[in-house]
């Protein structure tokens, strides 16, 4: 179980502020992608984020473009999960396909503060924040399979080989 600090943001955090459109057709390198994470939302984020940190936000996280870098840049920046009140549809798929954990848990979003240290127990479906514990429904097996494989591409690769 990894712990990390919380980076808390508001509602309707869109893909353009997570990963600006001007980079979507030129930046494909993971490290370079991580360097632009949340650039237009919080210019301090990319320089300070540490492996295991958690992004916490309100409703409709990841709305807007289908650009997968919005999920990928957070993963490459070391973010272990995004906890939100709800997720935009394409972002949710992209996150799982990239192997980035996404947790829908409105109570946790209300109960966790920016900069707080939290830990996530994925198998038990629990978020631990000091004395507070928040539960979330464990992900379906199919999704866990994708996350464990490291995302959709490694998963499909195994499937094409007949390993799954």
């Amino acid at each position, binding site marked *: 179980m990894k712990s990390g600090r919380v980076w808390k943001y508001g509602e*309707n955090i*869109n*893909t*353009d*502020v997570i990963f*600006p*459109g*001007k980079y*979507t*057709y*030129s930046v*494909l390198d993971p490290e370079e992608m991580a360097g632009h994470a949340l*650039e*237009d*939302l919080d210019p301090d984020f990319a320089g300070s984020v540490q492996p295991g940190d958690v992004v916490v936000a309100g*409703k*409709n996280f990841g*709305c*807007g*473009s*289908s*650009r*997968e870098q919005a*999920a990928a840049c957070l993963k490459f920046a070391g973010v272990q999960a995004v906890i939100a009140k*709800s997720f*935009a*549809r*394409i972002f949710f*798929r*992209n996150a799982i*396909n*990239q192997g980035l954990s996404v947790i829908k848990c409105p109570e946790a979003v209300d109960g966790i503060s920016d900069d707080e240290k939290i830990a996530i127990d994925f198998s038990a479906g629990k978020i631990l924040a000091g004395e507070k514990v928040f539960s979330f429904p464990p992900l379906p097996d*199919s999704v866990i399979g994708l996350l464990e494989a490291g*995302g*959709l*591409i490694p998963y*499909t*690769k195994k*499937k*094409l*080989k007949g390993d799954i």
Partner: protein
Amino acid sequence: MGKTFAEKCLGHKAAKPVTAGEVVTISPDYLLSHDNSAAIIKEFHELGIPKVKDPKKIVIVLDHIVPAAAEKYAQYHKEIREFIAEQNISNFFDIHHGICHQVFCENGFALPGKLILGADSHTTSYGAFGAFSAGIGRSELASVWATDEIWLRVPETLKVEMSGKPQKGVFAKDIILKIIGDNGAGRANYMSVEFTGPAAADFSLASRIVLANMAAEMGAKNGYFSPDDTVFTWLNKRARENYEPVYSDSDAVYESVLVYDLSEIEPQVACPHTVDNVKPVSMLDGKAFHQALIGTCTNGREEDLEVAAFILKGKKVHPSVRVLVIPASRAEYLNAMRTGILESLSEAGCVILNPGCGPCLGAHQGVLASGEIALSTANRNFRGRMGSRDSEIYLASPATVAASALEGKITDPRKYL
């Protein structure tokens, strides 16, 4: 109990009756991508197989940064062309065709009842033709290139029932902005949106595309209009293959029904930095701006350029603003050239750019500096989208943008129509 369009269309594909909430694994009809194909190709190569499963289903249009604005883009375009040759992909549209969504429609891929997936969020546009079309990500598209299948959750459906005749000066753009403003950017998240009611059939095909395109800005998985003679006539010489229209049952079950009398709607503007921050144009009258954009996959078709030319013909755009005009495709460009629309717009002082996405995504052809404000006919006004994170974007109809360009400040278009 009846079924919605989404339930019936995805049920046909799955060859079994399905209801909202079920997950189906199905084979799509067409797969769209654009300049992002370079990234998709990279993912595809990681799968370790030499060939895509069905090249006939793949449609690639270069439109986002065309012609290549820097060496990096040129390199990616080159890699895409090489892949296309190597994989025998015949449905390739190089930089001279226009915006992918318009080119896809003009070339008869957007067909009633088809399942279309695109690595672009505005893939929802083809719902104007009665297709089920949804946006997906890059690795997902690479995976579908390889396997020819995808899992999809059958969505619940939100019905938007429209009646009444829009007032003069009120267009499809104003109507969808009003709906998004009233209901919020996440209202249709994960859902199918059916645009129905007596007024739905009155919309031109171009106007239906505006609504279906911007259904994505409510979070929708897909948008839908019942295909009718307007669609069938348009498809007459264009359809790539046979198609079977799919309609909702009259007793289908909906998540909710939103009711709109279009005659009550006035011109609308979406304010920075979210598409649901919508106000009537009267509340913004007089707001100064620096750059106008008329075009994009939302509003770059004949009826859009025509109303802009009607307002600007014989006049000059205000000296304090610059106006960019981008027809959605080469076909639209040629038409606007032949009918004199481009001549009127150019004489008025507009900059006519080549068909493509232009500055909508902030990569080239008119990006914004810090402190600058744009008034655009595009579908998104997210912070930093057109350039500096300290710029602002307002969204409106082509008529509102053209009228505002004349005055150098946001202006109600009704006095010019």
